[in-house]
């Protein structure tokens, strides 16, 4: 008997009792639709997490200073070692082939931003080079970025985010306005496009970006750090780097300090180096290159620990997505259990069907059906039953996901692979739970079956 005629036979047998077929396959419908809904919502949320990380820059790596290890001293907070210099950043651009961009980062918060009668405290004030905008893929909405010359001379210019435009300037254009930050006047030269909140819920647009040289000399002043090593090639020409007056370059010197200390304060440390890899695939090679370059520059021997940290967004992504993955797997298990329950329902009804149609089976055998033909007939019937259920379940599940999307605004994402898998799983349920009834049918004795009332 050909497969097509067997399928036709099975469909006709199911059409004979549509209500029963529908109720029987309800378990499969519910199971499959649950799987589809879960998968679409799960995929949607993990995609949106990935997107928000990518909006931070999927290629982004951040080099942070490590914890200083002063012999005999208490461990201090991470980043307090002040081991990174602008020259490190230049070397990174120069010598790491996987790195496309790198910028020194200085950041500060809690500084008041004054314009006219409005006082505003931006979430963050960032000092960076022009590469910052490339790494963050951040475009200008208005005005211009600072120039290389302004960066070089530490000009008092800044660009601002949308939140500041809305809060301080009531949505009007702030370009060419003069504002005061920490009692220093700055000219706003540009406005950045809207970025929204990051995945921690912080407002990315509540930001002021200025040349890092300006930031260093005008805002943060000198952070006193402890040199983790003395081999730094940091430029110590203060007049070139710190045109501002009134900043203490050296701690007040005790009379005997110069004699008995080897810890030389360094002036040009930066808070972070933000690095953009050439492509997302090159993030890990960039990370390795950075590590070995900085170890070399900091003169760290093989027995020394790194005095810096390299963080990349992949780590972050893994941490965040592992939670969603686990939840998704749990829900999948629940859905699979409901599929098993549905399968038992299929088996039950197929057994009833075999009993009901004993005479038909006997007749078919009497006119020449082999046991395997009978097996095939009932197996195909249960597979068709499950496939119909699977199909309805796929549609229903997709509909439910769309409903969740429109009512709760949860992100969803459908994938053909999941749909295909659901289809195969429902066929698999049909095979697994239809086999025993079909086998029982095939084992019937035609004489007994024909006599069955």
């Amino acid at each position, binding site marked *: 008997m050909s497969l097509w005629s067997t399928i036709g036979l099975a469909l006709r047998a199911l059409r004979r009792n549509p209500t029963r077929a529908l109720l029987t396959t309800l378990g499969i419908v519910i199971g499959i639709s649950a799987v589809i809904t879960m998968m679409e919502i799960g995929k949607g949320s993990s995609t949106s997490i990935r997107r928000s990380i990518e909006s931070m820059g999927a290629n982004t790596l951040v080099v942070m200073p490590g914890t200083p290890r002063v012999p005999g001293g208490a461990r201090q907070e991470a980043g307090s070692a002040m081991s990174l210099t602008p020259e490190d950043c230049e070397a990174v651009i120069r010598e790491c082939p996987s790195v496309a961009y790198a910028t020194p980062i200085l950041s500060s918060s809690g500084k008041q931003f004054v314009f006219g009668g409005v006082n505003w405290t931006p979430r963050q004030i960032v000092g960076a080079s022009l590469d910052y905008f490339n790494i963050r893929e951040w475009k200008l909405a208005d005005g211009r970025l600072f120039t290389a010359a302004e960066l070089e001379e530490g000009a008092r210019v800044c660009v601002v985010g949308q939140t500041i435009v809305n809060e301080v300037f009531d949505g009007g254009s702030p370009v060419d306005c003069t504002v005061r930050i920490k009692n220093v006047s700055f000219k706003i030269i540009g406005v950045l496009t809207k970025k929204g909140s990051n995945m921690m819920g912080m407002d990315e647009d509540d930001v002021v970006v200025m040349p890092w040289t300006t930031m260093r000399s005008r805002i943060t002043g000198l952070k006193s750090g402890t040199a983790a090593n003395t081999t730094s090639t940091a430029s110590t020409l203060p007049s070139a780097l710190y045109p501002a007056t009134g900043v203490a370059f050296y701690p007040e010197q005790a009379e005997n300090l110069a004699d008995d200390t080897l810890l030389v304060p360094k002036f040009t440390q930066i808070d972070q180096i933000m690095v953009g890899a050439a492509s997302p695939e090159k993030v890990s090679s960039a990370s390795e290159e950075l590590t070995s370059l900085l170890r070399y520059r900091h003169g760290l021997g093989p027995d020394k620990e790194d005095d810096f940290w390299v963080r990349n967004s992949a780590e972050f992504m893994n941490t965040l997505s592992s939670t969603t993955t686990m939840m998704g797997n749990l829900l999948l298990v629940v859905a699979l259990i409901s599929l098993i329950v549905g399968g038992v329902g299929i088996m039950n009804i197929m057994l009833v069907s075999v009993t009901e149609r004993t005479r038909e089976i006997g007749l078919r055998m009497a*006119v020449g059906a082999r046991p395997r033909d009978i097996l095939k007939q009932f197996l195909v019937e249960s597979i068709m039953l499950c496939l119909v259920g699977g199909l309805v379940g796929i549609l229903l599940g997709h509909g439910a996901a769309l409903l969740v999307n429109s009512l709760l605004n949860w992100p969803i994402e459908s994938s053909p692979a999941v749909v295909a898998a659901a289809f195969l799983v429902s066929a698999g349920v049909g095979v697994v739970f239809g086999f025993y009834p079909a086998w029982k049918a095939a084992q019937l004795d035609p004489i007994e079956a024909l006599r069955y009332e």
Partner: protein
Amino acid sequence: MSLIELRDITKTYFLGEIDVPVLKGISFSVERGEYVALMGESGSGKSTLMNILGCLDRPTTGEYWLDGQEVGSISGDARAMVRNRKIGFVFQSFNLLSRTTALDNVIMPLSYTAGKLSHAGRVERGAAMLKRVGLEDRMRHLPSQLSGGQQQRVAIARALVNHPPVLFADEPTGNLDSRTSRDIMEMFSKLNGEGITIILVTHSGEIASCAKRTVVMRDGLVVGGEEHRQ
């Protein structure tokens, strides 16, 4: 060689401790084109013999030659093929598939035939068979829309659809009234006249008298035979 040749067929059912011998050594043969009535009281073993003849059951001992092939000891699948190609069955209770049209009932055995026949080819052959039994205007009817005699004629058409050399009928008129019974018996006579070998199981002497030969069974043995002159 005869179309059917039975050599010392026995059949014993083993029910737990007790052996129940039902057939105790049956030998007879049927030539091509014969019309044989198998008679006997209930319990005489004629149904068991019919099951063996119809390749639904196999004998405990003995040989059964059908159309030049020993079919008493072949495998289940091979017997299914013999049933499909060489044997037509007509049952007392028609055994038509309900909610299936007369035509689809008739062509159902063709789907188990190994040789490939297109759907159109099957329909054509089924329609020809229904025409042969006089039901060409009832092809799309369901069994429930047909009278008992018409249903039995559909069953006969189904039995003949694969052009088997032999037709077995087990009490074919048992569920029919006397007038319809006569129609069916006339149909058997007509088919026999067209060259089909027919073996009929009945307990009615009137029905048996339509056949050309009667074989009488009692207690698992053939006890007599009789040629009829038509």
